[in-house]
């Protein structure tokens, strides 16, 4: 069922046929509430109708297109400036990047050139200075930690190698005296303990 608002709307926009119009007008006459409602609806539409075909001042309408053209010109100039701005920024970054890379490469080359000019004695002297410096940064805790990890890996390797025949031949080439200089007392104790466990010794 259509609401009164829908009926008013169809009536005002001529969307009713003659029969529907007549029925609607009869309905309004028979209901005071509907008539009052319809009157308020008519007032809204009367105001709309009055404000519908208002003409704009010719002085204003004549300025619309010229103002639009001015704005368009300004936007075009601005977009050209923006494009040049971007191009300049890209060029600037490329130049900076290129100069940084060439500086780094030049420095590397310079270092290489310096190194080739040094005599053996000069190189050894530099290396020994570096070692002295390194000793100043000797970190006992770090060395211990590295040693403990090394010991764990060494034990693993010893265990694995005991059951690995393929590396047996490698042992034959090992000079024990030479090996000894690389093992600390602690390493030797560890190896001895493992070998004891395995009842090899």
């Amino acid at each position, binding site marked *: 069922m259509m*609401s009164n608002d829908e009926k008013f709307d169809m009536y005002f926009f001529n969307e009713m046929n003659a029969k529907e119009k007549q029925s609607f007008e009869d309905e309004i006459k028979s209901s005071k509430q509907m008539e009052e409602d319809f009157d308020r609806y008519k007032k809204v539409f009367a105001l709309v109708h009055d*404000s519908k075909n208002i003409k704009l001042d010719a002085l204003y309408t004549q300025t619309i297109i010229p103002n639009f053209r001015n*704005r368009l010109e300004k936007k075009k100039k601005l977009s050209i400036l923006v494009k040049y701005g971007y191009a300049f920024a890209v060029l600037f970054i490329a130049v900076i990047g290129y100069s940084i890379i060439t500086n780094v490469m030049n420095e590397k080359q310079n270092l290489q050139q310096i190194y080739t000019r040094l005599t053996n004695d000069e190189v050894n002297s530099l290396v020994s200075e570096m070692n002295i410096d390194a000793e100043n940064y000797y970190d006992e805790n770090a060395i211990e930690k590295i040693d403990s990890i090394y010991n764990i890996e060494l034990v693993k390797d010893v265990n694995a190698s005991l059951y690995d025949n393929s590396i047996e031949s490698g042992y034959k080439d090992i000079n024990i005296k030479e090996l000894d200089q690389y093992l600390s007392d602690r390493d030797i104790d560890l190896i001895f303990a493992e070998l004891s466990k395995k009842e090899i010794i």
Partner: protein
Amino acid sequence: MQDLTNDDILIKNFIQGDESAFNRLATKYQEKIYWHARRMTGNHLDADEILQEVLIVLYKKLKTFKFKCSVYTWIYRITNTRSINFLKKNRLRNFLTLNEIKSYRDDSNNIIADLEQRQKLEKIEKAIQKLPVKQREVFIMRSYDEMTYEEISKVTGKSTGALKANYFHAINKLKELLKNDEQ
């Protein structure tokens, strides 16, 4: 139909480089664009700003117009979208600057020469500005532009049911506002 054909010719001439064709097209629709923007925003300055923006959009996008709908529908859609965006921007600006949203801005630009007409316009404009945007747009399209719900649906993308509901809410609210005004 004649109008449509003329619009198509103007567009094709513009695409081929005839700037005067664009001017003629713009002149033909400038008042329709202005009045829709004016009714949405409630004041001349904002309407003028939107009109200029719409003309710039048309100038840039007309070359991509695919003739799938009438030029007028296309222009109307752009104008409606721009008007709604403008209102949202203004609302945000007012919120950020803690200004009260002025539902009606008085401007005496005298672009409407007749005083009586100006007064009638001010009365209905004040009332329309109190409607929420969704109700306002459908009320303007239905009452001022005499568009069917199907045509409004093509412009706004909303269903005819939703449009009818918004429209009748708008009418009832305007009835109340005008009734209070009289009292």
